[in-house]
């Protein structure tokens, strides 16, 4: 049985960047596993532009962004097994600390691969209609925005002509524009919350530029049509997100697209016993992106849902470098503390860090829209960092670099919270 240094599960932007991160630190015995026929993951169907502004300082489409990484993976000669689905991840029974990755592919058959380290880079999936429990019929014409995107951009087929979109996540916004450009009529985008879950630039470029109404604090309360969708009833919701009687409005349409949240795809991680963060839906990691299982790292949307692929690449490169350090036998830093989200902050990644880690970036999201606040990092009562911010929104991930100097002041658990500007 061949024993690999690193197996990367998932060949999307996270998996490719992680493999390259390890490669550039001298790791050679690497294998990327992906279930699709090509590398790139979800970027392959994201044919719009706007990728790479931070990382490459230019505006690329999803496939272009992916192709740059795929080319480098190929140039380095990193091995990939495509059309290969990982079914299981477990610790080896021989006490070696190795991981055993069980995978299946039509070409290679049933595989059991031993690896010293594993990077989890499986990405995320969309919440389906069932999870919303929307009453009504169950006809054809209800798709997640991502499934519709695949039909339109990869397969070349239209899922419908008259569209209502529920949820204003980025894929929903992108698909509102895409469907419009393909000749469909997008009648409304309904968002349950009083704010959008997507990027501001997407609301402007995908809805406002095309005159598509964004109905905040609205939801779909009923789906109509037996064989194919014939319409939806939408309604305004109150502060506790319950439909307001009397506010119902019927919109005739043949398609309902859903963009109601993304869920990190962690079935493998859970089965392997990786400790999970209930808020992110991803693993609990330290600043190296190492999970609770030594030698198992996580990055990208399987760790927490990102809004920009640039940050995915950055995080994944770090995970790959950390795997390389682990393979060199470099002991993880001591004195680990917890990083906790408080007062308006929903979660922080990493959830653990150590004071002698060197510079570390904290990634977090807020739970509501806040204006004129300070982002405050504390250790006990001691304020380590306080940064004013005009506006923070749930749809945009925040990134906060901590210098080595700040980290050296840590002597206990760290909290990240929001404070009103001017408050002491």
């Amino acid at each position, binding site marked *: 049985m061949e024993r690999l240094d690193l197996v990367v599960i998932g060949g999307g932007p996270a998996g490719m960047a992680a493999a390259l991160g390890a490669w550039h630190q001298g790791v050679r015995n690497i294998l990327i596993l992906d*279930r699709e026929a090509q590398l790139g993951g979800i970027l392959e169907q994201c044919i719009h532009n706007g990728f790479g502004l931070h990382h490459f300082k230019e505006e690329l489409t999803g496939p272009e962004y992916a192709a740059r990484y795929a080319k480098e993976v190929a140039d380095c000669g990193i091995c990939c097994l495509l*059309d290969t*689905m990982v*079914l299981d991840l477990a610790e080896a029974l021989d006490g070696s600390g190795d991981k055993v990755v*069980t995978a*299946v*592919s*039509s*070409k*290679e*058959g*049933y595989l*059991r691969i031993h690896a010293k380290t594993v990077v989890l880079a499986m990405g995320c*999936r*969309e919440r*389906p*209609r*069932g*999870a919303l*429990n929307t*009453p*009504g*019929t*169950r*006809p*054809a014409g209800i*798709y*997640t925005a*991502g*499934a519709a995107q*695949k*039909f*339109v951009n*990869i*397969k*070349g*087929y*239209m*899922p*419908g*002509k008259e569209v209502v979109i529920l949820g204003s996540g980025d894929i929903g916004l992108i698909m509102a524009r895409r469907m419009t450009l*393909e*000749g*469909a009529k997008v009648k409304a985008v309904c968002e349950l919350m009083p704010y959008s879950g997507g990027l501001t630039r997407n609301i402007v470029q995908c809805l406002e530029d095309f005159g598509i109404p964004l109905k905040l604090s609205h939801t779909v*309360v*009923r*789906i109509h049509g*037996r*064989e*194919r969708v014939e319409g939806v009833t939408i309604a305004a919701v109150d502060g506790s997100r319950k439909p307001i009687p009397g506010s119902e409005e019927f919109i005739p349409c*043949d398609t309902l697209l859903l963009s109601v949240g993304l869920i990190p795809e962690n079935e493998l991680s859970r089965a392997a016993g990786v400790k999970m963060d209930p808020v992110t839906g991803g693993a609990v990691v330290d600043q190296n992106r190492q999970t609770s299982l030594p030698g198992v790292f996580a990055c990208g949307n399987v760790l927490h849902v990102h809004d920009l692929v640039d940050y995915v690449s950055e995080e994944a490169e770090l995970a790959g470098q950390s795997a390389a350090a682990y393979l060199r036998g470099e002991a993880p830093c001591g004195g680990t503390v917890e990083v906790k989200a408080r007062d308006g902050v929903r979660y922080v990644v990493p959830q653990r860090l150590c004071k002698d880690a060197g510079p570390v970036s904290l990634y977090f999201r807020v739970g509501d829209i806040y204006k004129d606040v300070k982002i405050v990092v504390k250790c006990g009562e001691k304020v380590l960092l306080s940064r004013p911010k005009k506006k923070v929104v749930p749809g945009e991930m925040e990134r906060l670099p901590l210098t080595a100097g700040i980290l050296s002041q840590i002597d206990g658990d760290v909290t990240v919270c929001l404070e009103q500007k001017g408050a002491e």
Partner: protein
Amino acid sequence: MEKVYDVAVIGGGVVGGMTLRELSRYQLKTILLEQAEDVVMGASKANSAIVHAGFDAEPGTLKAQYNVEGNALMEAVTGELSVPFRRNGSMVLAFSEEDLKTLRDLQERGRKNGVPGVRLMSREEALSQEPNLSEEIKGALWAPSGGIVCPYELATAAIGNAMDNGAELKTGFRVTGIEKENGNFVVISEAGEKLYARYLVNAAGVHADEVARMIGDDSFSITPRRGEYMLLDKTQGATVFATIFQPPTKMGKGVLVTPTVDGNLLVGPTSEDISDKADTATTPEGLEKVERLSKLSVPSVNLRAVITSFAGLRATPGGGDFIIGPSAADAGFINAAGIESPGLTASPAIAVAVVKHLEEAGLVLIKREDFSSFRKPFPKFRRMSGAEREALIRQDASFGRIVCRCETITEGEILAAIRRNPPARDVDAVKRRTRAGMGRCQGGFCGPQVVEILSRELGLPMDEVTKCGGASRMLVGKTKETQ
């Protein structure tokens, strides 16, 4: 000369399917007529998926008789058809002194109906067996012969087995008229197609009264009684081990909480008489009721893990009992009607009874030498060991391609569903046969791939593939062609 079938069975649900299979043991020309474009599209696809023990039905009724007989046949039938079946036991909870009296009445009914092993349990015993039950319970009734089975898998397997033994299937055949010609029935479809048969079996579910009226039998009426359900993710499947019932009260029958044989958790149903025999829409009130009532039995039911909700229509007979036997209007027309709960459980016994009625009506039954009651199992990759998987992929590479990630369903299984009897021709048919799209992402990832495989295998353009037949096209056309 027109082809004349010996028996035509109208209705491709579990009763029609089991009857067809029973008939396929004999040297007969048989056909199953189904109005939808796939079999098992009515009550048999959307119900509680319970093999009832039989303590519920009133002693002396056909429901009581066939429930207990059908329950006893279930091991053999599911074994022959390679359909998973588990006797997980049924438990009825009591929340009050009055409920305890109801349980004693049910126990007595069980005794009269011949249900094995029914006994009362103390509160403590029930809670130790099912730790997630409400602390509020006062006691429980335990019936060890209760079980769970996948209803559409069972019905589809029965039809497939009958077809493998020579029975024919005609889908998309909505019966709109029945005439008599030279002593034979002439069954006329909505499209004007005619089909000749010496005997008819009416297993038309909610439409059985309409079909009976076509031969002048207006002796019964069927009311569609809607039941709404929620299905929870497999992470919740071990919330309870047995099927947990609530006691029937003046307020209604209550809802059940049960594991499914595939490892999910199912809660429901509501019970509401409606007028439209096709209205399987769910309602806010219904789903709210399921939520509220299920929490009475199991307060920790995690409804955030719901992966889908659905509704089914029970074919509730006006007279209360099953209607099984020859019609007074024509002795060659056998009704198997009003088959609401416990119809799934009773179906193997009903099938035997229907064939007996046909024999009494003059149908000559000669055993086929080449009949096989065994259906070759569908390959189920997710249930295989590593070695079995390895061997299977080596034999057929399509088993190495996972299409549905949530349920670990391979392309090989989807091809089998399309190629084997009864052939799947739409996305939902593939889903019911293989579970592709049944998992937590509900077809988000595999939907486009299943459409592509169906298109390729059936030689249909992508945009003619449907979700469930009729106008349920998945796609409306190619890009750049939308007006």
